[in-house]
């Protein structure tokens, strides 16, 4: 599970509202909706578009021009050119992320097309966005891209430490969308034995969301005790996303930042309704109070 990131990564500077970031014109400065739309509309400076796309998603813009402009930005992608600074592809990725947050089904067609883009970063952003949009039509495409399993889609590329497919995002999207049919479960299941713990975590999360079978929680609870902090954090976020109530005590015991435990516990309250395990909300709230 990717961690919450308040500032767009490649341009990480002062976020909106950070003190001392006065003045105008710098992509990291606080801006308003009108300015964000204007920056996205121009195409001379992709770095301004990049920040504008992020801004519109972060602030859940309801402006009628937001979605059309983001779709335009998504279509801006082109073959990668590493020397070009903030490339159009980075703008497209941020546009995809923002479209997931704005919740408009009008974005589904373009996001689906992006799932077959050659930029795996864009495929990743599109998969997450389609998950957030609960786009049923994404399920067959995601199934197809993951069908080759851990030794195909999940194999490490020869030119980088990345996998052939952004498996984590795609598995999580299948869990979010919620089609609990046997063929979908069958595509996800082999990834629970992937060599990378983050992929196992994503697969177990999806299966637990779809099937509610406690056996998939076992691996997630074990990952809360993994020696690497990054893995423990991912397992926290995944148990929260599922809303797995029996994880309350293990989450509280996990060696990780209170901020992340609080997000996981919030998930137990807000995402837990569909499970048979109904701990009193008060027990979770009490645990949250103790972490403040």
């Amino acid at each position, binding site marked *: 599970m990717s961690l919450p990131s308040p500032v767009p990564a490649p341009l990480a500077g002062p976020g909106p509202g950070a003190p001392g970031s006065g003045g105008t014109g710098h992509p990291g400065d606080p801006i308003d909706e009108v300015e964000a739309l204007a920056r996205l509309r121009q195409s001379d400076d992709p770095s301004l578009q990049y920040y504008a796309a992020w801004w519109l998603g972060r602030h859940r813009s309801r402006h009628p021009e937001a979605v059309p402009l983001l779709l335009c930005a998504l279509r801006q992608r082109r073959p990668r050119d590493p020397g070009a600074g903030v490339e159009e592809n980075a703008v497209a990725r941020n546009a995809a992320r923002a479209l997931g947050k704005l919740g408009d089904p009008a974005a589904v067609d373009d996001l689906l097309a992006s799932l077959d883009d050659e930029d795996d970063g864009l495929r990743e952003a599109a998969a997450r966005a389609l998950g957030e949009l609960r786009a049923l039509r994404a399920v067959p495409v995601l199934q197809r891209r993951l069908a080759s399993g851990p030794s195909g889609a999940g194999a490490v590329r020869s030119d980088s430490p990345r996998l052939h497919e952004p498996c984590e995002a795609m598995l999580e999207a299948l869990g979010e969308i919620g089609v609990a049919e046997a063929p979908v479960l069958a595509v996800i299941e082999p990834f629970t034995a992937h060599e990378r713990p983050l992929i196992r975590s994503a697969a177990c999360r999806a299966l637990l969301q779809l099937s509610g079978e406690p056996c998939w929680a076992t691996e997630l609870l074990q990952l809360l005790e993994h020696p690497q902090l990054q893995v423990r954090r991912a397992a926290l976020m995944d148990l929260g996303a599922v809303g797995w109530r029996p994880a309350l005590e293990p989450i509280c015991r996990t060696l990780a930042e209170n901020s992340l435990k609080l*997000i996981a516990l919030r998930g137990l309250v807000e995402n837990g309704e569909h499970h048979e395990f109904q701990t009193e909300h008060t027990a979770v*709230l009490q645990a*949250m109070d103790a972490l403040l």
Partner: protein
Amino acid sequence: MSTIAARIEAVQQAASAQALFVATRALAEADHGESIDPAAIRCLVEVLGFNNPGAAVAAVDGLIRLGSSAVDPLLTSLDPRNYGARAWAVRALAGIGDVRGLELLEEALATDVGPSVRRAAACGLGQLQLASLEAAERHQVRERALSALVAGCTDGEWVVRYAVAVGLEALGRRMEPLPQQRQRTLTALEALSRLELEPTPVVRLRARLAQQRLQEQKP
């Protein structure tokens, strides 16, 4: 068992992040007996500035155990340029609950860039200890803490608004506020519990729980 001085030295000599954490925890848990060694407080305050989260958590716990004797060193030795150290100091002061920390807690909740610092400040504002104060000062402190928390209801981060609900409940329960203050507390909690005003379900739930508990309490 090693003496306080030996434990301070172990912190100062620690050669790795893990060693610093272990030594700080040992110092934080030390039994000071009748009189607290000011050097131990200084040492724990210093650890807050080392950019070692594990050790800082241990130091905060230790400073909270030492209570009001740690307040002055925390307030006077703060380096305004070291954001991390300031953030940990806010947590320590929030945990200690001494009214001398009020101004820093108000400022942290209103302006700090870190949500984890604002959330600690919100909690701390609800836990200030007032028993030893004169009635007039007690009233003034309550008023300021309440105003700071009411303003915090519009914070942009859910976790801070959650902490504000917790702070308001604690303020309402432990401080026997005047009827007018009680009403402001309940009004603020009402706003945090309403669907059309508060977007985060868990915040609404926590605010409703706080409302319920305060209403069960005799005014």
